[in-house]
C-alpha cells in the first residue's frame, strides 16, 4: 500500500459514512489503487437512499441493491481508484448484475435500470450488462472530496 492508497482508503471510508453505510460491518482496504470491500454492506438507516437524494424503495432488498449500485459507481469515480472489488456476505455480483436475497425471492439489479424478483438460482430476465460503462470513467473524473 502506498501513501496514495492510504489517502484513497480514508476517502472511501468518509464517502461510505456520508452515504449512510455501516462501516463497522466492513473490512475496507486499498492496494495499488484497487479498493476492497468485504463483510456486510448495510445502511445505517432505513431511508439512506432518500437521505442522499434518491427515490425511496419500499422493498428492503431493492433498497440495499440501489444503494450498493450507487456506492459502487461513485467509488469508481474517486481519484486514483483503479477498481473496486466486493466480497460481501449479503450481496453477490455475477456478470455485472447484483443479486441479494429478499423476502419474495432473489432481487437483481444492474446499473439501476431494471430490477425483478426471482425464486432460485436463475437470473433469466435480468439485464445483461457488464461493468465496462463504469470502468471507462475510472481516473477521468475528479475525486469527490
Amino acid at each position, binding site marked *: 500500500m502506498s501513501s496514495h492508497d492510504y489517502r484513497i482508503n480514508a476517502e472511501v471510508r468518509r464517502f461510505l459514512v456520508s452515504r449512510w453505510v455501516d462501516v463497522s460491518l466492513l473490512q475496507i*482496504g486499498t*492496494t495499488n489503487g484497487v479498493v*476492497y470491500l468485504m463483510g456486510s454492506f448495510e445502511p445505517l438507516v432505513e431511508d439512506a437512499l432518500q437521505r442522499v437524494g434518491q427515490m425511496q424503495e419500499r422493498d428492503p432488498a431493492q433498497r440495499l441493491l440501489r444503494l450498493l449500485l450507487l456506492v459502487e459507481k461513485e467509488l469508481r469515480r474517486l481519484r486514483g481508484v483503479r477498481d473496486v472489488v466486493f466480497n460481501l456476505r449479503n450481496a453477490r455480483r455475477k456478470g*455485472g448484475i447484483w443479486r441479494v436475497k429478499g423476502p419474495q425471492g432473489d432481487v437483481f439489479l444492474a446499473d439501476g435500470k431494471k430490477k425483478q424478483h426471482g425464486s432460485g438460482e436463475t437470473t433469466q430476465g435480468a439485464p445483461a450488462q457488464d461493468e465496462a460503462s463504469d470502468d471507462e470513467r475510472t481516473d477521468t473524473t475528479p475525486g469527490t472530496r
Partner: protein
Amino acid sequence: MTNERTPLRALGELLRALDARIERHPNYPDLRNLRGLARIYSGDHDGAFADLVEALRLHSQYEAALVNMAWLHAERREPDLVRAVLREPRGRRLRPGLRVHLQVLEAQVRDGAEAALGVLDAYAAQPRPEPEPWHELDRLWLAVQLERWDLVDAQVRRLVAQQAAIGPILHQVGLVGRGSAGRAAFATWNQCYRGNPHVAALLRECARLRAAGAAFSDCEDILRWSAVLSLDLCDFWLVVGEQHDFEARDADAESAFRQAMQFDSRRAQPYIKLGQLYAACGRPQEAIRELQHAASLQPRYADVRYLLGLLLEDLGQLPEAEGHLRTALDINTRYTLARLSLGYLLATRGRWRDAVKQLEQVRAEGLVSSDLETRLAEVYEQLGRHEDATLARQRALSPESDTDDG
C-alpha cells in the same frame, strides 16, 4: 445546551435504526443491549426487559447488559430485583466499584438518597476502595436529589479540579450556575440520570449516527450530554476526532485525538485513530510511532498489526512488515486483506511458494479480482506452473466469471 430535549429526541432516531439492524442481525448482544437501554427511555419496560434478557442469553457474561438490567429494575421501583442482580453469580463477579454503584442504586430505591449517600461514604472510608467515575456522578446526583446545593457545588468544584475540561460541559448542562438559563438543561440531566446514566453509551452511538448526515454542532451537543453522564472525556474527544476526520478536517481531528490521549493514556484507540490519520496524510513515520504505541497497549489488535505491516513495507522494512502481517493473521485467521498483503509482500521478496499459498487462500476466501489473478499468474510463472498461470490470466480478464454465487 439550547434544547433540553435534544438527547432524548436523538434516542428515538437511534431506536428506529436499531430496530432495523436487529432485524438483520438478531444475534448481536450489543445491539440488544443498546435497544434495551433505549427502550427504558421510551417507557417500553417490557420490551427493554426482553432485549436485556436476550443480550444476556447471547452473551452470558455481558457486564453492561447486567448493569442495565439492574437499572431497569430500579426504574420499575423493584429494589429486591436490583439486589437479586447483585447476588446472582454474574453480579458477584462484577468489579467492586461497579457493585457499589449498583448498591447505591438499590439503597436509593429502597431507602432514599440519604441512605444511598451513606453507602458511598462507607465504601470511600474502606482501606482500599476502588473508585469509579460512576461514584463521583452518583454523589452529584444524590446531592441534587437531596437539594443539598452546598454538596452539589463542592462536588462540581472537585470534578473540575480533577479535569478542568469538564467545567464548561457541566456548565452547559446546567450543573454550574443553576440560573434560569440552565434550568431546562438541568432538568434534562436529572431525567437522563434517573433513567440510567449508562445512556451515555447510547448517546455516543446517536452522535455517530447523526454525523453521517447532520450538522456537526448537533453531534457535539449530544456528545456533551454523553460526557456529562459518564465523565468519559477520552471517549468524548475520540468521537469528536472521528467526526472531524469524516469531514476531512485533519488538523482538528489530530488535535481531538491528542486531547483524548491526555484524558486516558492507557487506551489504545486514540493512538490507533491518530496513526490512521497520519497514514492518510502521508506522514508514515509518525503513523508508525503512534501505532507501535497502540500495539504496546493492545497487542492483540489485528487492525493495528495490519496497518503497521503496510506502513513498514512502504518504508522497505520487509521482515518487520511480514512479522506484523503474520501477527494480524494469528489474531484473526479470516483477515483476508492482511493475507492478501502478506501474499503480495512474499512475492516481492521472491518467496514464491509461501506467496502462492497465501494468495490461493485469499481466492478460497472468496476475494476475486483481476489484480489478484494477475499477481497469481506472475507467481505461478516463477514456480514453472505455466498452465496455472494461463488460467489465472484468463480469470484476470473476467474475474467475476467463476464467482461463487451462493
